[in-house]
């Protein structure tokens, strides 16, 4: 059995599928057009550049072509030290402009954070190979790709640890759990704002959580003790997310737990983190590995 918290022996096909799926996510988050003509509260690259030119008609046509080419290169696994910086700059530019409006949204940070982490790794790897003055052996390239996939897993997990630490630093562990009794106010606020988006009442809940949703909402509004217990378990799930990196089985089960957590938040609070769910599925659930496992000589 592999040592805990070490780079898993990802197979080439696993890493290829991870790259293709992440490329699809990145393509999906990149908009066809942006309507923001101001950046009143600069974030990220907007601190250094006026990015509002990206809202001009047709301004994203060339960046989309460049992104497509870079993503194709990324999927192929070749010249990643060129492909990843291009992907990073383009996604960070549009994400920075969207988040420079004085209202931060947290839907697309995680995929771009994974790109950032892999970008740093492959730039370091390219520098290392250049200093070596000879082509990297095949084994070394495979190991570098495995490390990149492990770094992507760490980037995904880092978001959950950071979320938990932010809560603890802001309110204190005990304080946050104690104040969780006010959580039902947020449910009312979210429901009202959702109504004013379209002036239509929400559709009846659907999906896997539909049967338990009325029970959960009644629980939150009727019992402060149970609300605290429920929210505290979510906080500890986030704080201990690094446990997902112990090994293959932990990847799968902790990834599945975090997906259930997101689906619950989505159903109860109408807060949808679809890209987080995609990344958890790509890098932690890693279904292709579990499908291939019975046919592989290499086990977890």
């Amino acid at each position, binding site marked *: 059995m592999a040592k805990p*918290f*070490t780079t898993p022996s990802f197979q080439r096909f696993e890493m290829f599928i991870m790259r293709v799926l992440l490329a699809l996510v990145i393509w999906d988050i990149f908009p066809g057009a942006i*309507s923001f*003509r*101001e950046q009143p509260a600069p*974030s*990220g690259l907007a*601190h250094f550049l006026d990015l509002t030119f990206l809202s001009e008609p047709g301004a994203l046509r060339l960046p989309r072509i460049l992104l497509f080419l870079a993503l194709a290169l990324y999927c192929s696994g070749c010249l990643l030290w060129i492909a990843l910086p291009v992907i990073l700059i383009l996604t*960070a530019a549009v*994400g*920075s402009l969207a988040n420079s*409006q*004085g*209202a*931060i*949204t*947290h839907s697309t*940070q995680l995929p*771009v954070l994974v*790109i*950032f*982490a892999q970008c740093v790794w492959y730039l*370091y790897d390219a*520098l*290392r190979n250049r*200093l*070596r003055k000879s082509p990297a052996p095949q084994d070394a390239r495979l190991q570098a790709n495995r*490390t990149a996939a*492990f770094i992507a897993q*760490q*980037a995904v*997990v*880092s*978001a959950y*640890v*950071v979320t938990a*630490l*932010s*809560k603890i*630093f*802001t309110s204190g562990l005990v304080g*946050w759990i104690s*104040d*969780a*009794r*006010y959580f*039902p*106010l947020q449910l*009312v606020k979210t429901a*009202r*704002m*959702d109504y*004013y*988006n*379209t*002036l*239509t009442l929400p559709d009846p809940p659907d999906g896997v959580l539909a049967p338990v949703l009325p029970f959960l909402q009644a629980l939150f*509004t009727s019992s402060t003790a149970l609300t605290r217990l429920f929210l505290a378990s979510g906080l500890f799930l986030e704080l201990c997310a*690094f446990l997902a*990196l112990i090994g293959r089985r932990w990847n799968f089960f902790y990834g599945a737990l975090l997906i259930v957590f997101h689906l619950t938040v989505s159903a109860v609070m109408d807060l949808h983190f679809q890209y987080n769910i995609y990344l958890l599925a790509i890098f932690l659930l890693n279904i292709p590995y579990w499908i291939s496992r019975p046919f592989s000589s290499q086990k977890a």
Partner: protein
Amino acid sequence: MPAYNLEPNPVTRLPSSIKSVFGRFPLAALLALVVLCLALKENYPFSHFPMYSSFTDFTFYVYLTDAEGDPIPTETITYIRTGKIKKIFDSELKTLSKDLDKRKRELTPADKEDAGLLVLRWYYNNAPSASRPRLDALGALELHQVDIVVADGEIVEKPSQRIARLELPPSPPQEG
């Protein structure tokens, strides 16, 4: 027999030292990203993900109306959700409450009028061009706020307050 220099090259020593860091601390990337996200806060793609990091017995929501005070479906018209409008208004109120040395819940509608106008202008200016005629036809945009508080253990929604009104289409800036 040739003499070999067994001292490692200082340049090639760098990568091996980084490699050994990753070897000894396999979660170095996790640690580095956690520190970066907490230190850089909201600087895309970094974030300290502060949502719901504190709960209080007070919150509020906002909605927009037309000139007659009838609510409009903000997202249907412009693709901009009320959540975004509320966040922008909220960040303005944070600045205002510091400047006036008042808690957010103590700010009066008059205190908040300029912040409300700023939000309405942002909404109009950043709406897709195709949405402008529909917005102009409304005659005016109003921002309304509803406070949600806990009173006697019950969640109570206070009466709606009109914060600001922007006549549409906005008059062009005055010359000179």
